[in-house]
């Protein structure tokens, strides 16, 4: 096969002449994905979509629209943990040390701490999996719910999301407060 007939341009010409719908679909979709990926950094709507998606706010259509980019863009999520709240009384004495170590930074007056949480901040599927990792920590502290503030930074905008994590018999669940 000569180099000229082996080129992508020659391929596209052949596919177009033969009306090869399947191959043209593949080529078009591939080019479209590459084009959108190139334009994404300058399109605020793409960033908004990604932020919403990673915060669990995108809904079905938003997810489907971003399917090819599911894990392409990792945004920065800073997680602020509230004090574990509990309906069963104070945190037991034996859990205090673990609670301080695991749930929040003691130097932040135990109100709201900005914990780096390196294992969480760069995952591209926070808060879902991030919350999963936090549930055992909350359990260690003896609380049954805890608030979190997630500050998500895209490449142009920053959004804040208030989440509440509950422990229950099935493990845990979380709700978007605002």
């Amino acid at each position, binding site marked *: *096969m000569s*180099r000229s*007939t*082996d*080129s*992508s341009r020659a*391929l596209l010409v*052949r*596919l177009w002449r033969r009306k*090869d719908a*399947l*191959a043209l*679909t*593949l*080529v078009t*979709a*591939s*080019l479209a*994905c*590459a084009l959108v*990926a*190139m334009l*994404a*950094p300058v399109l605020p709507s793409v960033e908004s979509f990604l932020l919403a*998606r*990673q915060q*669990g706010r*995108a*809904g*079905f259509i938003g*997810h*489907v629209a971003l*399917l*090819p*980019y*599911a*894990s*392409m*863009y*990792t*945004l*920065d999520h800073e997680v602020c943990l509230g004090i574990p709240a509990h309906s069963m009384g104070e945190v037991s004495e034996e859990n205090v040390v673990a609670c301080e170590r695991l749930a929040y930074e003691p130097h932040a007056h135990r109100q709201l701490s900005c914990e780096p949480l390196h294992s969480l901040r*760069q995952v*591209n*599927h926070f808060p*879902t*999996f991030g*919350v*999963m990792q936090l*549930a055992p920590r909350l359990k260690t502290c003896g609380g049954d719910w805890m608030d979190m503030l997630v500050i998500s*930074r*895209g*490449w*142009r905008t920053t959004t804040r999301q208030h989440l509440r994590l509950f422990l229950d018999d*099935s*493990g*845990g*669940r*979380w*709700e978007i407060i605002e």
Partner: protein
Amino acid sequence: MNTHQAHTLAFRVGALATAVGSCMTLYDSTIPSGYAMLRFGSPLAQAWPQSLVHPVAPSLVMLGLIVLSLVAAVRPTQALRTFWAIFLLLMTTYCALHVTTLNKAEFYGGLWSALWWCWFVYTDSVDPTRLRQDGPRLATFVLMGTFLPSALGKTVPYHSPLLVVRPYGLPALFPNLVIPEGLRTAVMSLVIATEGFLGLAPLLPLRWVLRALPVVITAMFLWDMYLLPALLPVLSVGVASWIVLQGSDEHGDAASE
């Protein structure tokens, strides 16, 4: 190896790679992640149709694909090939939606690969000579769709409009390895260059790409073993393209002699 043998061998490579990749995905992602999502009552999961989110249906479909792939690899009749290709495309689309509910992208590369395999099986049945002429170059568009967005996505900065390589993607093989920031940037630059090279495959000489592909994919696998289910479909397309080219070349040489 004549043309027919080469095409059969190429198909078997695709079917076996699909079976192995599906086994790994079934073990790694579909069941545990899906159950974890349900267990923790994520609003993300609640926003989706439950048939997509719940892991049982995708897992059963994937089990079916594994069995079908193995049967098709052993007995690659035309009917089985066609059924396999259609099932692969449908299953890949369905599982891509399911995996997207988990915010993962294992099947992203699989979508393009499944399209290519559909084209392979269809073209092999109507005009086998076109496989050699168009198949390998068409495979480069599979690489473009898979790797170019991935490379570009890694260049987007967090807080700055400047092009900054992001420090993530540490090797899973070395979970406790702390890489200095400067070195991380260098490593990520290498990753971006590698993915960019594969993503620009349609513009590069075909044999360069096909020779480099197994090496690059193996390196990516060593970088992160969990990438294998996503890499195998792409690798199978590359290897199949290489086999098609080899078989045809030898056949062509024999014919010219």
